[in-house]
């Protein structure tokens, strides 16, 4: 049976003993605990019907986050507090619930508990919940209302204090790493879960289990279970390693720990690079950014992850660690080929190093997708270009969605550097792009569209620098 996972559910301690470590919080709530208010709409973190709030101790204070319970593994909740829709309005309707009723914010009602929880997150100043309503609710799909009544309800929300669970959580705090094992009767494997408490312990555990899957926010690995139905054997949760959750200023830039979640890096990165911030606000949703990590977005090697092209263009470097050995490589060298990264067994991403902007550089990111919010990019292009006296002195350009990996546009860069920043140069650089990439067609976009827009993004970089008076971006122009 092993140890029990313990967490607070709506203020009361719940013990899950003998639980499959890859059982999701949603399955646990609905199936084991019979809290059926939280719904399964997609089981992949895209619809938000399963939204709950999770509180965790950060130092001595509790921070709250709305997350998708469908892709949170139960052991990830150990020592944390969960508030589900059943935790609201026990005695009388919570103001958020009353506002939803008053504004006719529910029709079929299935997405409603998730929306109520996202709105409640806004009331208690949960992470990322202070954004414009559109952005805050991008991870809560509703098929009935058209959203207007929900937006109206959201606009009435008054701030309130979240339940004070700091002492209860402190009492649940572990001194030793959580370690679980579970014999999966269906897959016929024994599944193990380790949650080390320090980077050293993580390095040691991973070295001992180099075939393990490293889990951070589970916004990707959750789907390996719920969608791909992979019978995972060994998982190592890095979510308990506080050292990996820090952002520190180092010489000429930032050191972002591999466990830093998007939401916790957003403000800092947006301060340095406003376009990067704008892109990150569209990456996933509030719930995804509250769980997912920048390190995970890199380590999973996805060809369509949005952070890698931006970070490659910025000249970011990666700190890789295996046992007690560390090495630092340019981020673009990490991605070798589709599904293949420069990472040895037992080696993990410890941090990413992001340089500060060069004084004369212009940095732009364009994320193209079918839907503006919460959609995986068809193409993501990032442009870090320095121009001195109308001559391009350096250019780092990288794309996602154009190849099997996030990749620099080397030929395009060469066509720019040393040339005058003008229409003719841009024309030549766009032509050169054809030599950099041979994109594919898939459900998101055709190869032709990808190739065309990759070039048009560069054209737009030029237009925006040459004609700052023009409106060139739909969302900004749409909101006046």
């Amino acid at each position, binding site marked *: 049976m092993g140890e029990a996972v313990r967490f607070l559910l709506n203020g009361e301690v719940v013990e899950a003993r003998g639980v499959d470590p890859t059982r999701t919080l949603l399955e646990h709530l*609905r199936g084991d605990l019979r809290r*059926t208010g939280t*719904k399964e*709409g*997609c*089981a992949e973190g*895209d619809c938000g019907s399963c939204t709950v709030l999770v509180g965790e101790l950060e130092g001595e204070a509790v921070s709250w986050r709305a997350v998708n319970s469908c892709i949170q593994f139960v052991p990830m909740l150990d020592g944390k507090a969960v508030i589900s*829709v*059943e935790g609201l*309005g*026990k005695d009388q*309707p919570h103001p*958020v*619930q009353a506002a*939803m*009723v008053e504004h006719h*914010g*529910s*029709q*079929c*009602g*299935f*997405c409603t508990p998730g929306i*109520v929880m996202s709105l409640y997150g806004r009331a208690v100043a949960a992470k990322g919940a202070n954004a414009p309503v*559109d952005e805050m609710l*991008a991870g*809560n*799909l*509703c*098929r*009935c209302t*058209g*959203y*207007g009544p929900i*937006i109206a309800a959201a606009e009435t929300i008054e701030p309130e204090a979240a339940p004070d669970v700091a002492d209860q959580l402190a009492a649940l705090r572990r001194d030793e790493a959580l370690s679980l094992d579970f014999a999966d*009767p*269906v897959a*016929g494997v024994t599944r193990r879960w380790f949650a080390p408490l320090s980077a050293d312990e993580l390095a040691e555990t991973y070295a001992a289990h180099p075939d393990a899957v490293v889990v951070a926010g589970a916004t990707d690995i959750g789907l390996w279970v719920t969608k791909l*139905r992979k019978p995972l054997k060994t998982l190592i949760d890095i979510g308990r390693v506080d050292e990996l959750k820090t952002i520190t200023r180092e010489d000429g830039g930032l050191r972002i720990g591999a466990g830093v979640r998007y939401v916790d890096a957003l403000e800092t990165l947006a301060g340095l690079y406003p376009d990067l911030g704008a892109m990150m606000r569209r990456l996933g949703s509030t719930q995804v950014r509250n769980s997912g990590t920048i390190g995970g977005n890199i380590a999973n090697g996805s060809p369509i992850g949005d952070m890698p092209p931006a970070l490659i263009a910025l000249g970011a470097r990666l700190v890789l660690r295996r046992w007690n050995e560390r090495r630092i490589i340019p981020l673009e060298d990490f991605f070798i080929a589709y599904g293949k990264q420069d990472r040895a067994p037992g080696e993990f991403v410890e941090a990413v190093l992001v340089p500060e902007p060069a004084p004369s550089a212009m940095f732009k990111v364009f994320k193209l*997708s*079918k*839907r503006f*919010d919460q959609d*995986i990019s068809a193409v993501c292009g990032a442009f870090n270009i320095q121009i001195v006296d109308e001559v391009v002195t350096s250019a780092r350009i990288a794309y996602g969605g154009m190849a099997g990996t996030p990749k620099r546009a080397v030929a395009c860069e060469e066509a720019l550097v040393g040339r005058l920043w003008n229409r003719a140069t841009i024309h030549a650089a766009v032509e050169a792009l054809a030599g950099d990439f041979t994109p594919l067609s*898939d*459900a*998101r976009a*055709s190869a*032709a*569209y990808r190739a*065309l*827009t990759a070039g*048009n*993004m560069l*054209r737009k970089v030029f*237009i925006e620098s040459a004609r700052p008076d023009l409106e*060139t971006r*739909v969302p900004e*122009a*749409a909101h006046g």
Partner: protein
Amino acid sequence: MADSGAKLVEPIVFQGVHASLPHDSAWRHVSGAAIYVDDIPEPPGTLHVHLGMSKKAHARIVSMDLSAVRASPGVVTVLTAHDIPGENDVSPVIHDDRLFADGEVICVGQSLFAVAATSIAAARAAAAKAVVEYEDLPAAITIGQAREADLKIEASQRMARGDATAALAASPRRLQGAFAIGGQDHFYLEGQVALATPREGGDVHIWSSTQHPSEVQHLVAHVLAVPSSAVIVEVRRMGGGFGGKETQASLFAAAAAVVAVKTGRPAKARPDRDEDMVMTGKRHDFEIAYDVGFDDEGRLTGLALELASRCGSTTDLSMAINDRAMFHADNCYFLPAVEIVSHRFKTHTVSNTAFRGFGGPQGMAAIERVMDAVAQATGLDPLEVRRRNLYGGEGRNLTPYHQVVEDNVAPQLLSELAASCDYEARQRAIDAYNARSPVLKKGLALTPVKFGISFTTTHLNQAGALLHLYADGSILLNHGGTEMGQGLFVKVAQIVAEAFKVSVDRVKVSATVTDKVPNTSATAASSGTDLNGMAALNAANTIKARLVAFAAKKWGCAEGDVEFTPEGLRAGAELVPFDVLCRQAHLARVSLSSTGFYATPKIHYDRATHTGRPFYYYAYGAACSEVLIDTLTGEMKVTRVDILHDAGRSLNPAIDLGQIEGGFVQGMGWLTTEELVFADDGRLLTHAPSTYKIPTCGDRPTVMNIALWEAGRNVEETVHRSKAVGEPPLMLALSVLSAVNRAVAAVADHKLFPDLDAPATPERILMAVEDVKLRAGLG
């Protein structure tokens, strides 16, 4: 477990019809206390059913070895076509949808067998162990391939009035065009689900998330080879339907029922999102070609229209859906000479089905595109062209199917909306913006909607209700309509409350169940309130008549002096509280229970000639949309929408406004971001929200002004003169497609007409921009 929600309900003072009351389950929705099928506590021993699926679009099943499936941990039973006690059929019309494939598969995702296991994980893991050997057969995936192979679900249909060919030949001006419109997944947030419990004597009870409990009941009875009376189907609410649970619920209900009866254990079938999207039908995609004649004033003189749709692998409701596309190819416009030819192509893809609008949106998209093309050709404003072609005036009220339009309010709606949204000034401002903005372009379009209300299959236009007054004065209402979020239950409760002048919280609406009201029609075709509201009203009127007769006698006054008031029953000088009245009537042995029935009058239709009066009346609306596009990326945003919609005398303005906004945004999704992509081998590539993109909060138009048309009254004797509102607003979103097409045309100063396909994804918009640039020599 959260509380039942009952204590959250606050007392409501008397408000009957025309009041903006909240959804009947609003408090339960927000508290998580509303119970959907998957929330019902599973009875002990419940089995979880997973359906094995075809990996091929069209193939002969050479062999199917399920021994490893049976041997897999947790498996209790595995069922195939050979294990079905009765008929292997779950189709709504012509017995061509198999519960389990038998010898041949006709689409990817077709159900092959059912595995029932102690957990869904065990069932899925077991199903993956099936060894199926296929022999590929020729497959038609696209409309083009089916056209080439001449595969159809029925003969092509022709609807005509006048001599279109001659009219076209004689037309002063003439043009042709073609475009395509994609399908749409329903993406109800609650997926398909059924929970079947065996009962004594081979009976079975099924909780199903369905819009059509009677059909599920009848099909399950056939599958089990038992009479309909042995099967009870119950549905309290759905987490969205939109047409996707009209016929598509039967497969899962039947699979669960067969497992339950075979094993004697409760059985639940709940596909996950991906399985649901792969296995269930969608809105039909269409290819449309037009040949239109017109004069210099933009008035149509003749029209030949070809509508071709992808029906998928079986008939399902495709005949009626394609008929409705033809019925709406006129929209609000008089077509002096018209021929509409409709091809219903059979493809080896999942069988397409009902979806809000039921073919109407595609037909309407055709004529709206024609209007835009004529406007471009004549240089007239598109709204002016639309107005000139509206029904109205001597000899200009006959539809292509020979129904006379008697309730036309489109001219007023267009005028009022054009004024309130400042159409003309904005059109000028947009032209000025486009002239100075090389990267971003704007487009504006105002389009009307006229949607025919009634099932075009005439016999479906009937409904029943069962109403009980209890001796304590509480009221229990049951009717054949199902609640899927549209607010049907509160509207019908309002109608009953109004009849007795009691507060609506006195009227409890119970789950729809086939043993209370039999032989019901689907809750579909926007008809839910029209039919069930009237049936409930008739039941209430029956009981009222008994109470009036009783009261007149009891309190010694004329029946004419008996009146229901919010304070109670007034009988002469006597004022009797409602609960006292019920108690007294019960003691006097007056029946306090009644059924109610309603059948829509006036309607008839001859499908052989496509003539008649298929619709009792029409619902109207108009919308004006403004969009902004990026000519470098194709990105688009709807920046402002103004809507004026006719819901007749609205039974519940808040509910109706919710239908209008929700319908519009759903239609906007269909026409913009929602793209279904099939691989060449027939696999659906967009089978989850990660790849299939319905509108999210930020896609809502930046400014959205929605108004019910205050003057609206149904000219027909519908319940309290209201109009159906479920489907019509979806088509208001056609204004978005027109606006985008116009923004694209602005790239070449409207000198060329872009026949932009839908959905107008960023890719399609950009490619249309490129095409216009190329044709205009702007490369």
